[in-house]
């Protein structure tokens, strides 16, 4: 496309529809909440007005002819008129061709923007299943409603567990099928904070109409706060279960087995409440404080027979999370609970190893 034409097609909507700057809910369209929405609406109203003009022309002429050339008596004949006109045929072929080409180009330009996600977009994985949505954020948090930051491109990578679904956010004017066995992508940049409907729009069975949820656009800076709060497992889970999730998410179980098998580090099974021999010959009771120290400073009391390869988690893990992991280890240990010796043990001073008596 040469420059002049490029300018023309770019300019045309702006000239025709200067009022389209920011539209709330209109007769035809839901409110605009993404950068795509405005672009789509410009195209929509361009086609709309072209259609209105053509339709008015067709129906207007038809009505006029019916009124003007109404047959009064049954034997009235038509007035003489040509039966064909090459120039007319060419004209009314050419005009639709021009309109079609124009609309194709306009639609094509916006479409290419819609299918080309910008670099550095915030990625959220989407899973459709009968009949709900799962949104997985980069930190591993999973929610049933979509939450996104304002003014930041968001890329959805989508797949389905069962049949074909389709994700539609009318306020953003985006839609993409969610197909089992493949990943489809779509992206958007929301510009107005608020909560909007998100729907399944590919028929998927009895619960199809229930497969709707919301997308919440968080105001500037508030998304991270939300994600942090939402991904806090301790609000929703018992400590041991939260600890189990964390142990997987943080990668603990890659080295510490949870079935008693050997590994790079000591197995988690029956660890809590047992006595461990450190490399420097000490015998320590693996209680809450020992586990805590092993997480924040693994090299201090390394268990004999294992390589010093564990990184420190200091600064990467919160106290509440350590408590959760301890609760998880307790749940894996037969020494926990009824062990009288542990219960009677004097509370240790922080930072001082507890010697086995």
């Amino acid at each position, binding site marked *: 496309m040469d420059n002049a034409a490029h300018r023309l097609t770019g300019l045309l909507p702006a000239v025709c529809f200067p009022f389209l700057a920011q539209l709330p809910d209109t007769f035809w*369209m*839901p409110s605009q909440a993404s950068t795509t929405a405005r*672009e*789509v609406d410009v195209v*929509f109203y361009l086609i*709309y007005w072209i*259609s209105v003009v*053509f*339709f008015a022309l*067709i*129906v207007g002429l*038809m009505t006029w002819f*019916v009124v003007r*050339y*109404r047959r009064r008596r*049954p*034997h*009235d*004949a*038509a*007035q003489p*008129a*040509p*039966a*064909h*006109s090459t120039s007319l*045929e060419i004209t009314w*072929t050419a005009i*639709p061709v021009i309109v*079609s*080409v124009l*609309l*194709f180009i*306009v639609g*094509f330009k*916006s*479409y290419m923007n*819609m*299918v080309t996600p910008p670099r550095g977009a915030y990625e959220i994985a989407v899973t459709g299943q009968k009949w709900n949505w799962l949104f997985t954020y980069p930190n591993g948090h999973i929610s049933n409603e979509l939450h996104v930051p304002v003014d930041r491109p968001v890329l959805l990578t989508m797949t389905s567990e*069962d*049949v*074909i679904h*389709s994700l*539609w956010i*009318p306020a953003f004017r*985006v*839609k*993409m*099928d969610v*197909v*089992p*066995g*493949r990943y489809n992508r779509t992206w958007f940049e929301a510009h107005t904070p608020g909560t909007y409907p998100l*729907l399944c*729009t590919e*028929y998927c*069975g*009895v619960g*199809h*109409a229930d497969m709707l949820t919301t997308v919440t656009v968080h105001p500037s800076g508030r998304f991270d706060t939300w994600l942090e709060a939402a991904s806090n497992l301790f609000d929703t889970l018992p400590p041991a279960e939260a600890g189990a999730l964390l142990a997987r998410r943080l990668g603990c179980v890659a080295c510490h087995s949870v079935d008693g098998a050997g590994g790079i580090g000591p197995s988690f099974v029956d660890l809590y409440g047992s006595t461990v021999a450190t490399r420097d010959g000490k015998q320590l009771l693996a209680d809450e404080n020992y586990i805590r120290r092993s997480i924040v400073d693994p090299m201090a009391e390394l268990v004999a027979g294992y390589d010093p390869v564990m990184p420190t988690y200091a600064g990467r893990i919160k106290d509440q999370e350590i408590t959760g992991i301890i609760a998880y280890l307790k749940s894996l240990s037969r020494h926990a609970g009824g062990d009288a010796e542990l219960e009677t043990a004097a509370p240790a001073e922080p930072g001082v190893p507890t010697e086995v008596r």
Partner: protein
Amino acid sequence: MNTGAATIADRSNGAAGRPHGENYLNCASGWRSWLFTLDHKRIGVMYLAAILFSFFLGGIFALLVRTELISPGHTIMDADSYNRAFTLHGAIMTFLFIIPGIPAALGNFVLPLLLGAKDVALPRLNLASFHIYAIGAVMAVAAILLGGVDTGWTFYTPYSTTTSGQVVMVTLAVFVLGFSSIFTGINFIVTIHKMRPAGMGWFRMPLMLWALYATAIIQVLATPVLAITVLLLVAERVLGIGVFDPALGGDPVLFQHFFWFYSHPAVYIMILPAMGVISELISTHSRKTIFGYRAIAYSSIAIAVFSFLVWGHHMFVSGQSPLATVIFSALTFSVSIPSAVKVFNWLATMYKGAIKLETPMVYALSFIFLFGIGGLTGLFLATLATDVHLHDSYFVVAHFHYTMMGGVVIAFLAGIFHWWPKMFGRLFSQKWGNIGAVLVFAGFNLTFFSQFVMGSKGMPRRYYSYPPEFEIYHQLSTYGSYLLAVGLFVAAGVLLHSLLAGRRAPANPWGSATLEWQAASPPSHHNFDGPVILTDPYDYSGLVWDAEEQGFVRTAHEEVVR
């Protein structure tokens, strides 16, 4: 088209020996004389009855669907019943009603008459086509009685391969119905190629024949692909061959490509004959030569060709490659052009005509209005940016009802009213016919225009329930559908009344110049009793009103030069 009147002498059977008043309807009696007839007119009438019954059945399901949607949540049925209802509405209307509608019912009746012939080229194949249609219809009804299906009429995999219900029975019914459609198509092509009378060159054929020819080409070329698609679907469901099953490494979107490779051309199987009907009607009821004959004829063929190149526009958001999407968008626009050309030529035909608002013409004008909206809203869906938003919403539902119902069904009704006097020899009440047409028009717009608005505002299709903000649109739509039903019942009542108490129809009540109006109303078993005079199909100068006959008669050979 330079023409002189010519007689096709050898087509004449001679009126001698035929008892007065004998026609194809009463020349033989007993159910066998109907069910095993080889007469294209009787087959056409049987098709008409069967197709109208299917329309009634599909309409019942439509009203159930609309009634359920009058309020959010449970109104008269649960979600599962609703899904079955809209699936059956779609499947019955598509495969049992609209696809065979105009070609098999009206086409069968008028095609040989338009050619001045005694029958279609292959009468046995024609009868086989009807019998196969009946078998397919029985299978479809049996599937409904055995519990129905909930896949949607599009049978998308993997939903259709995993859901319960009579999917196999229904898809096999579709397979069988496909054969019926193919046989009709083959018959029409052969008949138009081989049975044209001497002197009727390709460009002296009535435009209805061009339309039926283009339709037949699509039927023959596209339907086999549907056949293999549903066979693969059945194999997938029964045997688990894995071709469409993502769990076995298959591709579910491949099914969509196969399905739409047929089903997109299929919408032109529906609309092309409708356009043919409208071309005949606009010219006849304006008493004026069709404007741009060649443009209309060529545009039929152009639509048939383009129809095979645009199936991918059903998959703009399926995840097919953006390149394919862009190409399909460009090709889709190409279909709009021949359609627009037809509309402009119809308007130009009316210019300076002598327009009479007889019932068929009222329907034809209604067609131009509604098809205009249907066609123009297609632009929103062909344009990529807007289609992403509108795809699978009520906007699409409204669009295809404006083209399929507002276009095809209205043209079908126009055609029935136009050829009714020829088929049954009775005139109907123009006044009540027009009242019915106006009710249908008003009810239709109320039903479907509100669906455009709710669609673009965010209402997805095939939803059992919906957020409360859409309730007002759904209520308007439902009330509209009731009005539409009333209009259709009025139309049916007008026609039935004419059979019982209608005035006897003259041979040519509308003053049409095509050959079927030279036969008696209704025609005799062999169609034409006297010599058939071959004239320009759109030259009305030789036809004059005869007050005694209450119809048009041909004056003695006037010199006709155009």
